[in-house]
């Protein structure tokens, strides 16, 4: 499903990704963890064809992204849902309209839009709030809507970049629960996060990154948090931060 071979990406001569290689199989659920600046977001952007790698090969759903014409990228993205840390919901549109936009973009017939939007909102438990605008919802609810939008076109793969970064532990738990359910129905899920507590609980594959390199891959929750990541509970919010110089 996702194959990366010796992928390197530079920003102004500094490597953001350095010789990254891994494979995520169809139907797999994997986390990418690491401290801020480890290259998690760059990695997801490259998989999503927002950025181009400078070296290496990336094969997504059997297609080598280096050989992909710019006009083909939208069609590749239609098979990949993306969930952002800041939700990226259109604030002046209702929840229903936000979902409908994703359906319109792929040319869904008008007659099907309402039904499909309702179904996907029901899946995430937000069907009763479909007429509200995002600012009327809590962070957790907004992220659920964002997950619904990512899923509405039934993608084969779901990518998420720090999806619980702005959420309280309870909401984070609910969102990860959604990811687990989606994965159980066959969708490949790749989540970049530094929410170590949740990662540990989920018992899934963990790809650990540091300074643009993969430092550990494959262990299911048995992996220890990176020495430079510390987790602690603060004010009910799961806070993860870098401890400089900690062994």
């Amino acid at each position, binding site marked *: 499903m996702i194959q990366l071979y010796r992928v390197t990406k530079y920003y102004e001569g500094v490597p953001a990704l350095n010789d990254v290689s891994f494979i995520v199989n169809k139907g797999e659920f994997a986390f990418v963890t690491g401290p801020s600046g480890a290259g998690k977001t760059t990695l997801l952007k490259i998989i999503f064809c927002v950025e181009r790698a400078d070296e290496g090969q990336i094969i997504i759903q059997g297609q080598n992204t280096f050989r992909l014409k710019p006009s083909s990228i939208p069609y590749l*993205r239609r098979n990949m849902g*993306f969930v952002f840390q800041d939700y*990226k919901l259109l604030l002046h549109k209702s929840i229903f309209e936000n979902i409908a*936009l994703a359906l*319109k973009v792929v*040319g*869904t*017939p008008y007659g099907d839009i309402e039904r499909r939007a309702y179904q996907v909102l029901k899946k995430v438990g937000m069907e009763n709030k479909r007429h509200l605008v995002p600012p009327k919802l809590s962070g957790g609810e907004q992220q659920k809507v964002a997950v619904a*939008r990512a899923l509405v*076109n039934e993608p084969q793969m779901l990518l998420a970049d720090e999806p619980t970064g702005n959420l309280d532990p309870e909401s984070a738990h609910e969102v990860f629960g959604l990811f687990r359910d989606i994965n159980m129905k066959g969708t490949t899920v790749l989540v970049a996060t530094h929410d170590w507590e949740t990662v540990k609980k989920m018992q899934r594959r963990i790809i650990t990154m540091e300074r643009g390199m993969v430092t550990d891959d494959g262990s299911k929750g048995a992996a220890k948090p990176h020495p430079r990541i510390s987790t602690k509970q603060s004010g009910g919010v799961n806070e993860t931060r870098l401890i400089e110089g900690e062994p």
Partner: protein
Amino acid sequence: MRGYGPFYFLGEAFRGLRANSVVNLLAVGTISMAMLIVGFFLIVFFHIQSAVSTMSDRLEMSVYLKEGLTQHEKDFLLYRLKTEPGVKKVVFLSKAEALAEFTKELKGQETLIQGLGENPLPDSYELNFDRHYAESRRLEALAKKISSYPGVEDVTYGKQGAEILSGLYKLLTYGGLSLAVLLGISVVFIISNSVRLALYSRGQEIELMQWIGATRSFIQGPFLIEGTFLAMLGSALAIGILAALYYSLPTDVMLFLSRMNGLDFLPPSVVTYMIVGSGLLGLIGGMISVNKFLE
């Protein structure tokens, strides 16, 4: 492949136009000012062109014949003159007819002619030309050519008049073209700015659409329609203002203008070209901004 038809894009375009109504109204106003200048210039152009055409029709060339030519030689010369390209009409003017005309022109001073004794004027052929051939360089070349024909004594034509007419034609054509190009560029610039503002105001939505798999044409369609519509609206407004101004001219001026060349307001075909042309410029302006934004 599934997709949305023109109604979806039209709906989205009008939603965008409504959302940025102030900016769009300003754009329409500015475009209509530019198109007002174009329209005014076109009215002047058509009136002057028509006047120039009338003058071209009156442009004549006189081919004076040598004394003592036989009828056969005159007929042969007539045949050669008639077959020259651009020659519309050839009329034979005998010595006697030429003198009669000359006498008429010298009304009140006929004694001058009487003093000449024998009729000194030669037989001649008077040539009229098609409008497009009434051009000084062509006429000069033709005069030179005809001078070399056997039996031709001299060739004269309104050289100065022809040169002035040619100059006027050139000035109108090149001046008009330059002005049209300049104003065309300004329309493209105005539309491209207006569409750019619309793009920035919906930047978040466009970025999101790219992330969720929207094709380039799906994103740019409504903006291109907006650009085209704004330019066409500006142009139509300018034509409306121009027509109102034209028809509010005093009756005497109107009568003078229409008697001069039989021209009313801009012909419908020109009005259509103006609106469609500005629509195309609007489309180009929109494309420039959208492409730059999506890059």
